[in-house]
């Protein structure tokens, strides 16, 4: 998604066009357009961020630390972190396999699968949670099976992990597909000709070429998993101390008018996601 994120300032946009004198009109139009865009971004993006920072720090940094070091807040953050980690591990295996199959294999219905992969981008998180509730809830088809196996999925961690997996499905796959396509098969064929096994070819030839797409997919998945809210709310129920994640804590704290706690947790969560995404952006730029 952010593949086009960072352009080196292109020489073309810097050099003046030959044969045209820039009239005062042109200069003013240019200034006006830049001013409009800068104002828009300031009002839309920067002002809310500044408001959150000042809101969280309104009672001083001590209040933030106190609010965040409450045991239920810490356990909520810890729960979020473990769900995100599990999600990342599962998607690094299954997401890679999925991207591989979609690029390298030909089978009927492939175009439909290709469309389905993007569906979690657009499906409402609430609907995702609700689908899982229909599947695993008290009155579902699977309920007797789950009961017999003594498995609790709805209103428990497994359901929340499934919900997060659903929501983050496209990230790894979409990062890897273009890289796999670009890499092609020549080098793999060369390796196979030299006697490498399928696994050897994958680990020694293909994977190193995918490495950056893989890392980028991982970080996007992780950041998205940290911020998931609607789906884990519906399937997890947000029971304090049991199924409450960081986002669910923020929701409850706002409801209970514990503003310092809500704002500080929101700020910390936003900063963590931001640091992850920016960090991987920097890594990628360095690589290029």
């Amino acid at each position, binding site marked *: 998604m952010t593949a086009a994120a960072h352009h080196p300032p292109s020489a073309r*946009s810097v050099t003046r066009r030959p044969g045209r004198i820039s009239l005062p009109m042109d200069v003013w139009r240019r200034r006006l357009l830049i001013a409009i*865009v800068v104002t828009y971004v300031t009002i839309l*993006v920067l002002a809310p961020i500044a408001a959150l920072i000042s809101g969280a720090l309104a009672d001083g940094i001590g209040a933030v630390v106190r609010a965040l070091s409450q045991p239920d807040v810490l356990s909520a953050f810890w729960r979020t972190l473990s769900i995100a980690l599990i999600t990342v591990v599962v998607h690094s295996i299954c997401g890679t396999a999925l991207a591989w199959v*979609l690029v390298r294999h030909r089978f009927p219905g492939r175009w439909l699968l290709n469309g389905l992969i993007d569906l979690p981008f657009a499906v409402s998180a609430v609907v995702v949670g609700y689908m899982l509730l229909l599947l695993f809830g008290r009155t579902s088809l699977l309920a007797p099976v789950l009961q017999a196996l003594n498995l609790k999925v709805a209103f428990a961690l497994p359901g929340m992990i499934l919900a997060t997996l659903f929501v983050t499905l496209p990230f790894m796959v979409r990062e890897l597909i273009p890289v796999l396509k670009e890499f092609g098969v020549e080098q793999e064929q060369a390796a196979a000709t030299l006697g490498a096994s399928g696994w050897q070819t994958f680990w020694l030839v293909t994977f190193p070429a995918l490495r950056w797409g893989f890392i980028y997919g991982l970080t996007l998945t992780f950041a998205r998993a940290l911020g998931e809210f609607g789906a884990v709310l519906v399937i997890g129920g947000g029971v304090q101390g049991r199924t409450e994640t960081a986002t669910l804590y923020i929701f409850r704290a706002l409801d209970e008018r514990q503003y310092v706690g809500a704002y500080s947790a929101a700020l910390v969560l936003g900063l963590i996601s931001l640091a992850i995404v*920016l960090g991987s952006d920097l890594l990628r730029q360095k690589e290029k």
Partner: protein
Amino acid sequence: MNTIASSWPHPKAGASSPWGRRGVRTVALTYLTVMLIIPLAVIFQDGLRAGLGGLWQSILSPIAWHALKLTLWTAAVMAIINTVMGMLTAYVLVRYSFPGKALLNGLVDLPLAIPTLVTGVMLVVLYGPQTALGSWLAREFGWRIIFAPPGIILALLFITFPFVVRAVQPVLQSLDREQEEAAATLGAGPWTIFRRVTLPALWLPLTTGTLLSFARAIGEFGAIVIVAGNIPLRSQTAAVYVLGEVESENRLGASAMSVVMLMLAFGLILVVDWLQRGRQTSRDE
């Protein structure tokens, strides 16, 4: 892993691949079926339990219908503003150089990195009724932002800001400027050049970016439930309505609205996919 692999006896080239292929394909397709197809099938089956008529009836109940209409019109207003401003932002980023351009370019991606719930909290802190700005706007102009449609539109604009910019930017960058220069030589004004030469070349990324942001907006929940609250017939959107129906155990209501939202999302994604495929084949030729 690769130490294990390299200790294996070397098979003849490609000998193990049919099994490996089949194994990987089975894993991938099973995963997709379990994760995506089964849950989707269950919700469609549940939504259509009472037949299409039952689904319609449930959608046409006053509260559900209001929620759906609110979702669609706020998303449409967002899409219009986002298309114009996204286009303009991409144009400024590609065509002009000015101090702070790199920072502006980085800021465009920021909304992708921030959880939408946090976006909602930010807007409440900025425009909420207790805050300085929020109470001033309400007093001076009678504008209510939070718990009202303007808040929903602002939240959606924040979340979808990168969609149009990042769709248009690469196309604008690779656009050949000779045609524009030719038009200028022939005496066309800057607005005519933009409208007649530049814009037609950008319609595809503009359309896909707009459609994707619209699809994204229909399902948005985290930011909206914070900004708009859950007031039926006033500020309740479709996603928040589903939550309410789930909580009050009205299964038909929740399933019917979910099916409608899914159909809209899938339809829009297929259209975008089809548009993009058309471009790819025409480029290959």
